[in-house]
Each structure stands twice: as structure tokens, then as C-alpha cells.
């Protein structure tokens, strides 16, 4: 069948369908979609602070999504990324609480510790898969919860604030330990630079590096890749650790700029969100930053939505989730045509 105007506007379909779906939900709850969506719009772009917030939230999301591009290339479902973010923030916190150095050095060490933490957690998941034969989805999942539990142990035990145990989090870090922020917002230009660099590295690695090619082979057929000389286990673990390091960096951004201390469940689903981002981008590298930004805008918008309409802010998650689902279901006209053909010959 010839690709006509239909195919050109097709990518919009899932987006429209998702908006329609959420509108119906809103009407069910006797809320006007117009009000709701404009509230979300305001919440995302209503003021410079808000825009800065969207950017600030976008950065860790982008970092995680970039890392996931690598693991997806290697055919790995790195659901453990949540825990990797958390271990990152734990790593950064550890340095922040235990060292007192000049800001540049302090921050460098914090970031390195964060990346190491994330890489460690991812490495465990990778090791469990390659050497232990535990699928990364389940290894990662268990590690996610263990990471949260570890945080709770730390902030209610060794790292609890002097005034006594609580789950509030650690004491706020000193100025020298925090990322320099763009006037009073939570947006740290440094973090943005780091994220941008990380993303371009990923892009190059996937396009032009031998490693990227190895991972591609690994993702398509690990057995053949192995026989063609790819150290399948090692590369798989490396891919995981690379992603973990970026996630860990994201975790550092969370504690060092978004918050000012380690809080419980600091990642709060950003990792899962990043998985959705990459899926909605259909694993196309260049789309990822834009989709990630869109997600960040939607979620930040949902906050104001709740303030204005008193509606549950999970509406934002629903919108993003449904969008990805519809991309899977209607995103690809070719498949749907295939479907029609399948129907034809019974």
C-alpha cells in the first residue's frame, strides 16, 4: 500500500487518542478537560520558575533515558534503574556527609561516587543475569526495593539527623556540597551540561562505536554474537553498568540540586518513567530528549492540576502511560495493515 497523507499524520494519532481518553476520564469526574489541560499547561510553562522546574526535572529523566538506550540496544530490560538512581543518590550523600572539601572537588567526588553507586547496583543485576541466570527484570526489581529499604535504614539509622530518627531524610548538605543553582530555582546548569555530554556520548557510542555494534549484535542474538567474538557476558554487564552510572548521576542531581538531602524513595518512579520515554520514542535516539521533556512538562503540570481541580495528580501518569500504550497499539500503520491482511485470509 502506498504511504499517503494518512501515514504522514499517523504519528499524531496515539497522542490524540491519549488526550481523548484522559478527557473522558476528566468528564467522568465532572471536571472540564479544558480547565484541566490549561491548568497543566500553566503548571508546566506558566512562569519562568515553572519552566525552570520542568527543565530541572527533565535532567535526571534524560540521563536515565540515555542510559536505557544502551541497555535496550543490548536487549536488556533494565527495570532495576530505579534502584540505580537511588544508589547514585546514596553515593553522593555519602560523600556529602563524610567530606568537607572545596566545592569543585567536593562536587566532583560526589558525582563520581554517585555514578559508582549506580554502576554497582546495575552491575549486580547484570552479574545475576549473566552468571546467575536471573532475568534482569526480576533481579532489578528486587534490587529496587532493596535500595529503598537501604535508604530507609540509612536515614533512620547511621545518617539520621541529630535531633533523632525519622524518615524525613538526612540533614541538608552545606552549600559547598550542593550543585550551583540558577537563581533560586532547582535548575542546575552544571547538571544540564553533564546530561548533554552524557547524551551525546550515548549517541556516538550507538552510532559509531565498536561497542555499540557489539551491543546491537548482542541484543539481536546473544548466541551468535558470542560466537562472533563478543564477550556477551562482559558486554552485557558493561552495558548495565554504563546505564547504572548515568542513572546514578541522575540520582546525584536529585539529591544535590532538586533536593538538598537524601530523602526516602528519592527516585519515586523516574526510572520507570524513563523506560516509558524510550519506548514512546520507539528507541530512536534523537526523539528521546524531546519525549523526556514532554513527560517532565506533563508531570509538573499535573501538580497545578491537582491544586486547581483537587483531582488526583496521577492523571499525569495516566496521560503518559496511555500515550505509550496507544503508540504500541496504533503507532505503526504497517502492523495494522498486516493485521487487516491477516483478517482477510482468515
Amino acid at each position, binding site marked *: 500500500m502506498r504511504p499517503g497523507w494518512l501515514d504522514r499524520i499517523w504519528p499524531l494519532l496515539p497522542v490524540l487518542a491519549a488526550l481523548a481518553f484522559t478527557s473522558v476520564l476528566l468528564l467522568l469526574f465532572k471536571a472540564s478537560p479544558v480547565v484541566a489541560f490549561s491548568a497543566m499547561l500553566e503548571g508546566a510553562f506558566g512562569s519562568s*520558575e515553572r519552566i525552570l522546574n520542568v527543565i530541572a526535572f527533565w535532567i535526571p529523566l534524560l540521563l536515565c533515558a540515555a542510559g536505557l538506550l544502551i541497555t535496550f540496544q543490548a536487549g536488556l530490560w533494565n527495570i532495576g534503574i530505579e534502584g540505580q538512581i537511588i544508589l547514585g543518590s546514596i553515593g553522593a550523600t555519602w560523600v556529602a556527609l563524610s567530606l568537607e572539601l572545596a566545592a569543585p572537588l567536593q562536587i566532583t567526588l560526589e558525582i563520581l561516587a554517585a555514578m559508582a553507586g549506580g554502576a554497582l547496583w546495575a552491575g549486580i543485576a547484570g552479574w545475576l543475569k549473566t552468571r546467575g541466570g536471573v532475568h534482569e527484570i526480576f533481579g532489578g526489581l528486587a534490587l529496587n526495593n532493596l535500595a529503598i529499604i537501604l535508604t530507609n535504614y540509612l536515614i*533512620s539509622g547511621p545518617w539520621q539527623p541529630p535531633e*533523632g*530518627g525519622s524518615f524525613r531524610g538526612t540533614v541538608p548538605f552545606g552549600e559547598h556540597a550542593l550543585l550551583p543553582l540558577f537563581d533560586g530555582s532547582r535548575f542546575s546548569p552544571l547538571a544540564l551540561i553533564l546530561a548533554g555530554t552524557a547524551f551525546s556520548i550515548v549517541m556516538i557510542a550507538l552510532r559509531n562505536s565498536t561497542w555499540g555494534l557489539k551491543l546491537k549484535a548482542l541484543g539481536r542474538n546473544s548466541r551468535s554474537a558470542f560466537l562472533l567474538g563478543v564477550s556477551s557476558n562482559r558486554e552485557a554487564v558493561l552495558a548495565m553498568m554504563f546505564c547504572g552510572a548515568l542513572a546514578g548521576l541522575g540520582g546525584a542531581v536529585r539529591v544535590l540540586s532538586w533536593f538538598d538531602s537524601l530523602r*526516602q524513595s528519592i527516585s519515586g518512579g*523516574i526510572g520507570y518513567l524513563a523506560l516509558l520515554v524510550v519506548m514512546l520514542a520507539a528507541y530512536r535516539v534523537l526523539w528521546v530528549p524531546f519525549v523526556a521533556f514532554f513527560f517532565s512538562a506533563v508531570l509538573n503540570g*499535573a*501538580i497545578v492540576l491537582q*491544586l486547581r481541580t483537587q483531582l488526583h495528580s496521577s492523571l499525569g501518569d495516566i496521560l503518559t502511560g496511555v500515550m505509550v500504550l496507544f503508540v504500541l497499539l496504533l503507532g505503526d500503520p504497517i502492523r495494522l495493515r498486516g493485521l487487516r491482511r491477516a483478517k482477510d485470509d482468515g
Partner: protein
Amino acid sequence: AAPAAEPTEAPAAEEPAAEEPAAEPLTFGVVLVGPANDHGWSQAHAEGAQYVADNLGANLILFESLNPADKPEATLDGVVDDMISQGATLIITTSDEFEEDTATVAASHPDVIFINASGDDVHTGEAGPNLGNVMGRMEDMKAIAGCAAALTTQTGSIGYVGPLINFETRRLVASAYLGAKYCYENYRGLDPADLDFAVTWIGFWFNIPGVTLDPTEVVSNFIDTGSDVIMSGIDTTEAIDVVGQRFAADEVVHAVPYDFIGACETAPAACLGVPFFSWGPAYLALAQSVQDGTWVQSWDWNAANYNALGDPTQTDVGWVPGEGLSAEASASLDQFIAGLASGEINVWTGPINLQDGSEYIAAGATATDDEIWYLPQLPEGVEGPSE
């Protein structure tokens, strides 16, 4: 400040700069840590806020479930900024979780009054001029709850479902135990050494699946291992839910829920009563003072109004007895309450030893507010971790 409270000497706070004329209605924001309909801690605050809105004609901006797990993208100052942009001049943050952030945000909005419920920044002097604390004296109500439990238990074993361990939760468990001990000894004439009072901490204020212990299972386990009265110290209602189920299956078990005045309704017959927070009066007083521009910084630790213990419009903390209470049990309980009211009973009277055996309150002495507020360890006789 609120009735029956003793404001501690706070650093003399100069009046906040901006004041709007009392004419136009006050706009105030309330931030909850959990959902507004959790039948527990957060709902009690939500209804308190609503009470203010109704009685003062103030308009309320409510924000629920502000915690990183539910809303990674939300932060206290983001929410507060929006509330202020909507004209809020009073912001109430209703959890100890918000203590630090409230202090920070308060500093960046000097012309808005902030109240952090259950915090002690004012008491410790860390608070900026526009930040106050409020808390209800739940300790006495917990003592009543403990007494009701002790009066009812047949197996002599009481289970307490605790949230996470901190000063607040520790002193509440302690009060419950001391109340139970007093009544077990004085009204049932049994040896308090035989009273088995165990606490299990789930690890957070409410159940986070996979991360905390599941309160449902904790309660079942208590009942299975012989406890016949379950007290709840967590924000949500699992204790009364499970006990209600077991009760319906003809088991002899009772529960004492917590926080929310309506908590018994899940299973009235199995409920011995509920010690509840009623934030309405305190919030109303605060809002009033802010509106009139007469607000003075204070650390309010509001005691119960024993003349209206069950009336949420007249007391900040209270107790409503439940159907599960037997006739003579409630008779004794009323004596106990009367004793507390008149002050002739104080369960915090020594000798009180800590779990490690060290003496905390000497024989005959009674604990000071600070000794209660900053209780370092659970008292001797309570089974379960102290930190």
C-alpha cells in the same frame, strides 16, 4: 495561641511585615503527607482545615500526598509558591516530614505565616519569626486507649502497631503502655508484670508495599500469637480492618484505632474507642489570629478539653469510646479519665525505667514536658525495638 496551651518562651517574634485588612477573607494552604481520605492522620488534618474554611469563611487550598514516593516531581516550595501566588497568607504543613522544608520555605517567604504541625523548631529555637508549631497532647489520649485495652484483654497480651521510630512515636507507645499498666494494676487488680505489651514497627507512617512491613500481616500475626487487643499507631486503618474481620469470624479480638474520630465505623462492635486528633479548633484559632494580624509565634502542645472529650469542635485531642467496651470496663475507664482530668492520675509518675533498665523517672517524681517529648527509649515492660 490555642486554649489550654502553654506557649514556651519563643524568641520574641516581631510581627510579620505585610498584613491584609481583616475584611477580605483569609486564603490559607494546607499540605498533607498522605491522601485526604485515609481515615487517619491526613484526613484529621483535612477536616480541621475544612472546619476553618467553614467557620471563618476562609478559602482553603489543599494539597494531598506530598511525598517523593507519590510525587517525585513535586516539592514543598513548588506547592507553597503556587498557594502563595493564589493569595495564601497562612500555610500549614501537617507532618513532621515537612519540618526542615517548612523552615527553608518560611525563610524565603517572610511575609507569610507557616505552621508546621508536630514539629518542635520553635521549642528548640531554630524557627524563623514567621514559623509556628502546633501539636495535640495525644499522650493522655493514648494513655486512655492503653487503659481501655488493658481493661479488655483476656489473654493479657496487647499488640501495638507502630509506624517508624522517633521521639513522637516512642512517647505515644510509652503513654499507651503506662496507661495500660496503670489500669491493669489498679482496676483489674492484676500484676502488671504479667501484662504482655508488644510493639511492632512497620517502618513508615503508612504501608508502602514491599518496603514496610504490611500492617495487615502484622495485625494478623499479633492475633495469631495470642494478642486479643490491637492498638494502632499508624496513619491508616489496617488494625481495625483486620480485627473487624477476625471479630466477624467469631474471634474474641478488639482494636483501638488512631488519629481519626470516625475510625471506629469500619467495625464498631470490635472497636474499644479511638484517641483522635481534632485540628479544627487549633487551626481556627491560628487562622483567626493571622487574619486579625495578632498571630504570635508559639509552640503549642494543646492538651485535651476534658469537659468535651468527644467533641471535635471543642478539643484538640479527644477520645470516643467504642461499642466493644464492656460495661464495667467503661465504668473503670470513666474513673481513669476523671482521674486524668482532675490531675490526680498522671501515668508519667515514677518509678519509670527504660528498656535498658536505667531509671528515667525517679519514684514519686512526674515527668516534665521535655522528658516526655524527648523520651530516649521505650519504658521497661514494652517488648519491641526502641530505635
